[in-house]
């Protein structure tokens, strides 16, 4: 009898230990800057967005692996009135992290706060219509309809960013509906997140998530120190690894280095086509020539850039979307070929001639231009050096100039005193509607020639028409047809010369279970509520 009692006591102790081990533990990773705000409606920087992602509850979540919409705080939803309304059925029995019950009134409160012009919410910009106002209709405690004055394309995706705040909690925005809540914050040092005891989500066995008791986000700017700490086992995850670091990590700890494939991030260059820019007239003619732009594109060996700069962890870029964007990427497009001879033929068509190793235009001006990029970004500096050597084969002299970021932005957006620029593109939104400010000729991010009063070229006029078309259509397939055409025009006209799409490279300690890095942000911890640590907790090099 006593022996049996001891056996049951031991069994109970083992089960309790196992349960404790699964729900306890502190997972650490680095933020590369201080969070500027903990108000989820005002988050605009990556550090604040990280805290927002881990603490905030949303009505609809985009699954970072499948890229499909998933129910969050809303169990179901319907888009009505040709995209002017969206009706949500909310989850019942949900509470904020301080125990305050969640209801439709909280969604209405959040929408009012979000669209308040006085708040200047970056998230609110997507919701705020050009004219009219957004209204909410609460029907009971768990039903709400949000109405917009005009149809909104891809309406559901907007709600992935909308963190619901409590209308009643005395803790205000500190009361959250996400898997974690902020437990401690030491400026310049760390943000400590504690598991939300009221989090609504459960795993397949009915166990409440998240598994982790704490997440610690250390402020650490230096990527080298971050890697050093990872290898010591002091942190467990790194997002967006540099390819060189990734390879060096893979050499010593292959299980920690994860390449999730092509991401949504690419490097690109473009020429200044602003007619009023202070450039020489003949250079403006070069840069506005489709043949010139395509010839430069064909003279760049993208495969070499992938191999040398990205160590093979990338692919030649095609256009504004990479194959990582499963639905919107135009599958019929291929990366521009590397063909210096074809490039030279194109240039000949425009009157360029190679004389004594130097390329000259029809008026005898040697082809020489500068390429600016931001100082301190080694990857871009290496790409620029490779482009420089590729173009020298055509007799083109390229001057690479690195500038501090503020000077560079001033040149490309205000003075237009530059010739070509190399920068990166980070797509955080899968939907092309988020790129209206890039492709419309009147937009400020139409960076090669912004703020056009009316489209200056036929192809830009066509892009305007197509982008307006996709923005006012609800049927995703029709919208895709519109944006496929936009991608074709971009490919043919080359206002941007897309160079390389980098792979999503992450480092994940072997002690982290359930990690499944994706290509969408936040790659390594998109499923934070399901991450857990093995009992030893450390994953450094042994």
């Amino acid at each position, binding site marked *: 009898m006593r022996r049996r009692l001891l056996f049951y006591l031991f069994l109970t102790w083992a089960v309790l230990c196992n349960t404790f081990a699964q729900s306890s533990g502190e997972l650490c990773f680095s933020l590369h800057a201080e969070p500027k705000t903990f108000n989820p409606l005002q988050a605009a920087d990556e550090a604040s967005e990280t805290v927002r992602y881990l603490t905030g509850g949303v009505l609809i979540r985009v699954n970072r692996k499948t890229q499909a919409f998933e129910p969050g705080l809303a169990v179901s939803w319907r888009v009505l009135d040709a995209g002017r309304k969206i009706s949500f059925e909310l989850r019942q029995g949900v509470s904020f992290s301080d125990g305050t019950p969640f209801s439709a009134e909280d969604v209405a409160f959040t929408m009012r706060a979000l669209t308040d012009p006085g708040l200047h919410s970056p998230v609110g910009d997507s919701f705020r219509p050009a004219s009219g106002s957004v209204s909410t209709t609460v029907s009971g405690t768990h039903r709400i309809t949000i109405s917009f004055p005009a149809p909104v394309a891809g309406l559901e995706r907007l709600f992935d960013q909308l963190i619901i705040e409590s209308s009643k909690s005395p803790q205000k925005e500190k009361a959250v509906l996400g898997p974690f809540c902020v437990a401690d914050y030491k400026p310049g040092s760390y943000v400590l997140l504690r598991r939300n005891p009221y989090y609504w989500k459960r795993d397949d066995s009915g166990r409440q998530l998240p598994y982790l008791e704490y997440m610690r986000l250390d402020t650490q700017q230096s990527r*080298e120190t971050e*890697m*050093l700490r990872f290898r010591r086992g002091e942190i467990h995850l790194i997002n967006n690894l540099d390819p*060189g*670091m990734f390879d*060096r990590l893979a050499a010593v700890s292959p299980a920690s280095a994860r390449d999730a494939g092509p991401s949504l991030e690419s490097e690109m260059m473009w020429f200044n086509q602003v007619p009023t820019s202070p450039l020489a007239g003949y250079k403006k003619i070069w840069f506005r020539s489709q043949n010139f732009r395509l010839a430069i594109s064909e003279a760049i060996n993208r495969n*070499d850039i992938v*191999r*040398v*700069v990205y160590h093979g962890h990338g692919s030649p870029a095609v256009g504004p979307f990479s194959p990582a964007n499963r639905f919107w990427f135009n599958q019929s497009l291929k990366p521009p070929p590397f063909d210096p001879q074809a490039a030279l033929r194109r240039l000949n068509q425009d009157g360029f001639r190679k004389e004594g190793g130097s390329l000259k235009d029809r008026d005898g001006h040697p082809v*020489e*231009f*500068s390429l*600016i990029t931001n*100082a*301190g*970004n*080694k990857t871009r*500096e*290496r790409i*620029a*050096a*490779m482009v*420089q*050597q590729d173009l020298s084969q055509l007799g083109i002299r390229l*001057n*690479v*100039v*690195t*500038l*501090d970021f503020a*000077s560079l932005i001033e040149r490309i957006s205000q003075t237009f*005193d*530059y*010739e070509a620029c190399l920068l990166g593109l980070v797509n955080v939104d899968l939907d092309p509607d988020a790129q209206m400010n890039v492709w419309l000729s009147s937009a400020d991010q139409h960076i090669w020639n912004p703020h056009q009063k009316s489209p200056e070229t036929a192809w830009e006029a066509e892009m305007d028409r197509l982008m307006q078309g996709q923005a006012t259509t609800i049927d995703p397939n029709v919208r895709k047809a519109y944006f496929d055409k936009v991608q074709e025009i971009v490919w043919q006209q080359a206002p941007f010369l897309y160079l390389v799409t980098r792979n999503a490279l992450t480092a994940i300690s072997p002690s982290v279970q359930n990690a499944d890095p994706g290509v969408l942000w936040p790659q390594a911890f998109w499923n934070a509520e399901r991450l857990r640590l093995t009992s030893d907790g450390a994953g450094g090099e042994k």
Partner: protein
Amino acid sequence: MKRLRQLALGVLLAVFVTSLLADFITPASYATQFRDSPNVGSSWKFPLGTDELGRDRFSRLIYGTRVSLLLGPAAALLSTLIAAMIGGAAGYIGGSTEQLAMSATDLFLSLPWFFLLLMARAMLPLNAGTWSSVIITFALLGLLGWPPTARIACAGAKSLRESDVILQARASGCHGLRLVMVHVVPNLAPTLFAQFWILIPVFIIGEANLGILGLGVAEPLPSWGNLLRELGDYTVIMSNPWSLAPAGLLLLVMSCFQIALSRKENSV
């Protein structure tokens, strides 16, 4: 000690001459990218291995040394001349001129010169060309680096002004430019010469600092500054110890300058 100084001067001379002969002794151009051999280790073909773009490290080190060792002294000379004119004149004339000049010098000293350099670099024409960017970078260093030397020159000139040598020269009827050229400048020269030697390594390090930020000498031309940038990532050093060669050479040259300088200072 004398032998050590001679050795230091010999090393400096050898490094300088080697860098001048870069066109003849390097196996490849500093810009040629051997794209099939990026980041390889030391071999007969690449004595110090290659960098991330497959460029021969040895060639880049020799050419980079030429850039830094030629233009460092040029910038130091420019700075010393400006300092001699402003500080020397202020100290010799004295009175309100000295006060005005030293106030301007103090103002210059208190300016965040590093940010001034960044601003000035950003305002340069973009199509300046590689060599132009080098010359402009060092010229900026020279133009902004004179104030500490000016203060020393001022103090030197001031003590000269009140010295017996000058008093006797004046009493002998020597005045004006003749007094300055025959008595003031030769007596001030050792101080300025020592300052010139001190400024050379300061400007070489200054360019290296700008290069580490990517704001120094433009690609693909190498300099010690942009060669040292590689060392920002410790894992590169672990995997390719030859990447330490520029730092080693910089350390050697700076040490030799210091050893050679000790003699110059003692002679003042």
